[in-house]
């Protein structure tokens, strides 16, 4: 029997919810929106059982605010949404970047712009995930391509958010979110869970936004003696608003440094048959699955194709892409948008190899056949 092995048939959205619970998430605030709603529904059942809190807010602006509030109180918190709601969340995602509040935002991508295609997949929010909130800021964005990855990358999203005190965006698409696959749930003791570093100094010595070698200051939860100020204004090391250029610059640079000096820890990708690939397909999310099939079929035809699957979308995995570009004559970037990650690939490739694109925006998943056709055309 499957159940004894803890092997389950689970939906992507449900696996996200299970991953969140396994990572220690005990607070969810959200607003119903297709195709992400199952995450909220699942957690509305499970969280109260675990002593956690589920709350349906009046909109996504509020959801994001409540998530940040809960995190400041010391509780791991998340929300889940889709395009229109993700747009509304941008304001407070920026707050979480500025005030360095750990939290996880799941965006199940559907067709857009605007209301777009509520029940159809797309990958149009990749740049929005990077630059959606105003101002210069780093951000970490992950992309899941399977039900097991929905689980493991949600755990990873929480771990990264706690480690780097930053909001993490997990991108799904309608295909992955609604897909059901087998998943073997790892026992809790096998999971590596990271909890935010809290201050060890007494309150009077605590400097809430002090620079540290990692660039990440320890974070005191509200209500435990460390009374400090949290603001969306640019602030000094004590958290107080500042207008001094010798404080503003170092603060913004530290926000970037805490991410950039840890790229090896943050970047995550997989390669498939790239060793001798004359063409490397660079894909993420559900399209990576079509690409893998296309690579298998291309190899069957004697075409030397390989796949680089990006699981960390932002910060962009420059070294992995550069490696692919150096090894192959051609890289091909299939995306369910008019070309978002392909722009980054072109920038990073910098003329080393030829960058081809395959863009599909009709609300259906790119098929292996379409990618194979492009591979064949490019290599002949």
């Amino acid at each position, binding site marked *: 029997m*499957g159940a004894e092995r803890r092997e389950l048939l689970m939906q992507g959205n449900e696996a996200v919810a299970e991953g969140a619970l396994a990572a220690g998430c005990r607070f969810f605030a959200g607003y119903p929106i297709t195709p992400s709603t199952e995450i909220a529904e699942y957690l509305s059942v499970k969280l109260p059982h675990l002593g956690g809190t589920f709350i349906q807010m009046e909109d996504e602006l509020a959801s994001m605010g409540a998530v940040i509030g809960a995190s400041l109180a010391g509780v791991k918190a998340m929300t889940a949404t889709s395009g229109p709601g993700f747009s509304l969340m941008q304001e407070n995602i920026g707050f979480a970047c500025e005030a360095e509040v750990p939290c996880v935002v799941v965006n199940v991508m559907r067709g857009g712009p605007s209301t777009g295609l*509520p029940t159809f997949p797309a990958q149009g929010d990749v740049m929005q995930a990077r630059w959606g909130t105003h101002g210069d800021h780093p951000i970490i964005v992950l992309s899941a391509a399977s039900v097991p990855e929905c689980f493991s990358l949600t755990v990873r999203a929480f771990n990264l958010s706690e480690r780097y005190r930053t909001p993490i965006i997990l991108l799904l698409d309608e295909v992955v979110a*609604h897909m*059901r696959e*087998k998943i073997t749930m790892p026992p809790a003791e096998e999971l590596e869970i990271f909890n935010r570093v809290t201050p060890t100094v007494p309150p009077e010595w605590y400097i809430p936004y002090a620079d540290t070698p990692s660039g990440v200051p320890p974070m005191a939860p509200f209500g435990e003696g460390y009374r400090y100020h949290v603001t969306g204004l640019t602030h000094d090391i004590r958290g107080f608003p500042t207008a001094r250029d010798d404080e503003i610059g170092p603060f913004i640079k530290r926000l970037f440094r805490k991410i950039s000096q840890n790229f090896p820890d943050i970047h995550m990708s997989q390669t498939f048959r790239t060793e001798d690939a004359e063409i490397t397909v660079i894909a993420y999310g559900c399209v990576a699955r079509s690409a893998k099939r296309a690579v298998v079929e291309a190899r069957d035809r004697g075409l030397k194709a390989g796949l680089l699957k990006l699981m960390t979308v932002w910060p962009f995995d420059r070294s992995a892409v550069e490696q692919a570009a150096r090894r192959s004559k051609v890289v091909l970037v299939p995306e369910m948008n008019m070309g978002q990650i392909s722009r980054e690939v072109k920038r990073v490739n910098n003329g080393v190899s030829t960058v081809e694109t395959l863009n599909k925006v009709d609300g259906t998943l790119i098929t*292996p056949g379409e990618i194979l056709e492009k591979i064949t055309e490019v290599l002949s």
Partner: protein
Amino acid sequence: MGYRYEIRLSGSGGQGLILIGIILAEAMGLYEGLHVVQTQSYGPEARGGASKSEVVVSDEEIDYPKPQKVDLLLAMNQASCDLYFPDLKEGGTLLVDSTFVNQIPSLRAVRIPLTKLAREHLGRGMVANIVALGAISELTELVNITSLESALVGRVPKGTEEINKRALYLGKSEAEKALKEMQGKEIVDYTLEETAV
């Protein structure tokens, strides 16, 4: 080289196609130990509109999650039969609910009045989807009726297990009957030979 078998369950919203997709995937994945991916596509309507649920099953890891050429197509209304028949693999199996599908594009279609049977034998047209599931167990060797029964019990509302089990076995026996009839008429027994793996 492994095999890949693709099932599409289609009809209108509210006919329970996503549910039987999940049960089928669970039976094949957890009880038969195969690799399985279930996906779905649906319109904005909660009821009515077009609905389909798809299951891809394989003995190795599944990359592309959607069917490319369908091995088994269930059509529970005329519109879905018309729309999806062209995607059926040559020699693939077409199962239609002949309560609603009367223009059948293939002589070799397995015709079972799923909804009518559900109404007449079980008093509830809404278990027609489970009748279809039982029939599917007879049309492919990849899933056993007992696996389906185990998966079904965990997925249907409490208190409806019995009627659903009866629907499942009804579907199986009706499919047996239909296949026998087709053999009698000297229509090639394509189902088990050509799609068996």
